[in-house]
């Protein structure tokens, strides 16, 4: 009873709260980092150096009027943001924050497959939300989102297969342990896959330079144009939660998960003083910073160019990488 219900439930409560709070602070971090990149200060008024902005924003969003457009499909319009947020949160159930079972909710042996499958559901929220708004900009946006998801999901999944070949398991804990046994992060063994998954991750989470479904200067916010208040913020939460998910997946697959850098080199053993979950979160933060950094720097791709990159560049490279990995696996 205790082990089957109470402990997992407690873990879920802690994890959900941690994620939601970190999402609000991620928004603050994004605003701050972009502000610094643009020689501004960013939020400074609420709390010391604007720290409490992370709380003020959600309060504002909750208090705002929740509008449903008159001609919208009411039910779908309501369900869509939930559909986009829930998968983003569910994924965390298999993310191992550390080696100890205390640090993950569940350890299923097809963890990676689970993540790939569940994150793809999230885009339905965007498609349905755009369609249910009964408005033209959201419609265009949801068309873009579905095309984008398909073209990038394939490339990312094929690439992940090559990592699975290297690791020999779909279990996320197993993948990290495989990296410990190999004595090197898979990011070094599979540099091409590393870059592909990161680029694909940018595209799947609709981040710059692939934020076409949102594209506020073209589609005026895209799928969430007609949303306001809490329903809008659910989309918002989902996007940032997805960014954290992708960062976590990349860290697990390519950056050694909770392990300290250079796990088998005696000189660097002092790294082990820092607990694994801190390493894990620290690595995620590095990736999150890169996400934000790219947003501050790059212009946006056009829709057709994005599709070109997906189908003509990423998928061939991913397939080639898979073949080479397979051959290497057989030969060595």
């Amino acid at each position, binding site marked *: 009873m205790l082990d089957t219900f109470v402990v997992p439930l407690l873990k879920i409560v802690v994890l959900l709260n941690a994620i939601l709070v970190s999402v609000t602070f991620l928004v603050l971090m994004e605003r701050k980092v972009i502000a610094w990149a643009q*020689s*501004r200060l960013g939020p400074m008024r609420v709390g010391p150096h604007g720290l409490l902005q992370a709380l003020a924003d959600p309060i504002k969003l909750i208090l705002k009027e929740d509008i449903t457009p008159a001609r919208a499909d009411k039910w779908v319009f309501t369900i869509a943001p939930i559909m986009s947020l829930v998968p983003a949160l569910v994924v965390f159930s298999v993310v191992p924050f550390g080696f100890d079972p205390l640090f993950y909710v569940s350890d299923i042996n097809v963890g990676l497959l689970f993540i790939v499958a569940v994150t793809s559901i999230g885009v339905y929220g965007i498609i349905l939300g755009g369609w249910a708004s009964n408005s033209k900009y959201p419609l265009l946006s949801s068309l873009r989102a579905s095309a984008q998801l398909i073209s990038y999901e394939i490339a990312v999944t094929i690439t992940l297969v090559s990592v699975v070949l290297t690791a020999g398991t779909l279990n996320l804990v197993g993948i990290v342990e495989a990296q410990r046994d190999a004595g090197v992060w898979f990011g070094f063994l599979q540099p091409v896959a590393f870059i592909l998954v990161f680029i694909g991750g940018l595209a799947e989470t609709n981040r710059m330079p692939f934020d076409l479904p949102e594209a506020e*200067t*073209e589609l005026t916010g895209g799928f969430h144009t007609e949303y306001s208040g809490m329903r809008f913020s659910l989309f918002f939460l989902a996007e940032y939660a997805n960014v954290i998910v992708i960062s976590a997946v990349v860290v697990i697959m390519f950056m050694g998960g909770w392990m300290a850098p250079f796990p088998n080199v005696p000189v660097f053993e002092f790294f082990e003083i820092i607990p694994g979950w801190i390493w894990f979160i620290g690595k995620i933060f590095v990736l999150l910073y890169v996400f934000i950094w790219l947003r501050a720097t*790059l212009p*946006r*791709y056009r*829709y057709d*160019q994005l599709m070109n990159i997906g189908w003509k560049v990423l998928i061939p490279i991913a397939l080639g990488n898979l073949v080479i990995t397979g051959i290497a696996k057989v030969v060595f």
Partner: protein
Amino acid sequence: MTLQTPRVTTSASAFDTDELVLNMGPQHPSTHGVLRVVLRLDGERVVHADCVIGYIHRGVEKLCENRDWTQIILLTDRMDYVAAASSNLGYCEAVEKLMQVEVPRRARYIRTILAELQRIASHCLWLGTHAMDVGAMTVLLYAFRERELLLDLFEEYCGARLTYNAMRVGGLPLDIPSGWDKKVLAFCDLMEPKLDEYEQLLTNNRIWLQRTRNIGVISGEEATAIGLCGPPLRGSGVSRDLRKDEPNAAYEEFDFDIPLGTKGDIYDRYLIRMEEFKQSIRIIRQAVTGLPEGPVMGKVPRLIKPPAGETYHAIESPKGEIGYFLVSDGKSTNPYRFRVRPPSFCNLQALSRLVKGHLVADVVALIGTIDIVLGEVDR
């Protein structure tokens, strides 16, 4: 008004598709004000585009016919409000031409400095918003940072930051404050490395290149036929810059180049404006260092009453050729007819031609590359 375009079926196959009519604007973040573009889309491809203007029409031209010649300067500020000094300059010179007034050399020099500072300020705004439309949001803040310094310079000169009312018929109301010329030179020194900073972010950026090259190509002949002016015309390789062709103010005394494009796409127009920044700095440096002594106001009667007649005078504003057609009846103190040839309006004509066959994302890039100010389009 027949704006409602009928839905046209494009193909007769089993999968019939309709064209989507999309209203871009007047409330849209990238139409630079209250421009409304009615797009007919096939998927995301633009089949046809109509520009609807007039949302901030204030009747400036008619208004001017009821104001005296000096009061009009203030109204010219309100047309191209991001390049007010250029509008002032064009109008004042047109009246001077009508009255055949000699403007002191010092005044002409200071006018040139103001006009060129204005060109940099206007191009800063263009660069920031254009890059923002394409998605590079940091450039906006960088360009505005430098534009702020320019506005400070203008504020120090005439007290206003946007609508300057900085010139008068026959010269200038004010001489430059002491030390202002040094500050202008200091700004020039500061601006040059900043330009490299902008270019680092954009000029060789692969995404920027893909978004701007071969988009909105227009040939030199076509550009001339439509009546384009300014950077969009020079981007197509047509050498026409009124600062060289029909020099006004003190331009004939300075040494500067007119950059020309070859292809006539967005990227060419971008490069031309980036080069114009540098040429403007060059002109300002020459003007400030060679600033002659003397009065800043010519001999003009207190009550301005040009003799009966008409004139057309055009100058090169940051956006292109801004021309004033003035008719005086010689009796009253207000113009009989006042008409502006606004560069934004003439350049905007090209939009529906440029966007045809491109995607929605290119529409905003093309609005940006034309560099319009709706205050001037609608007047």
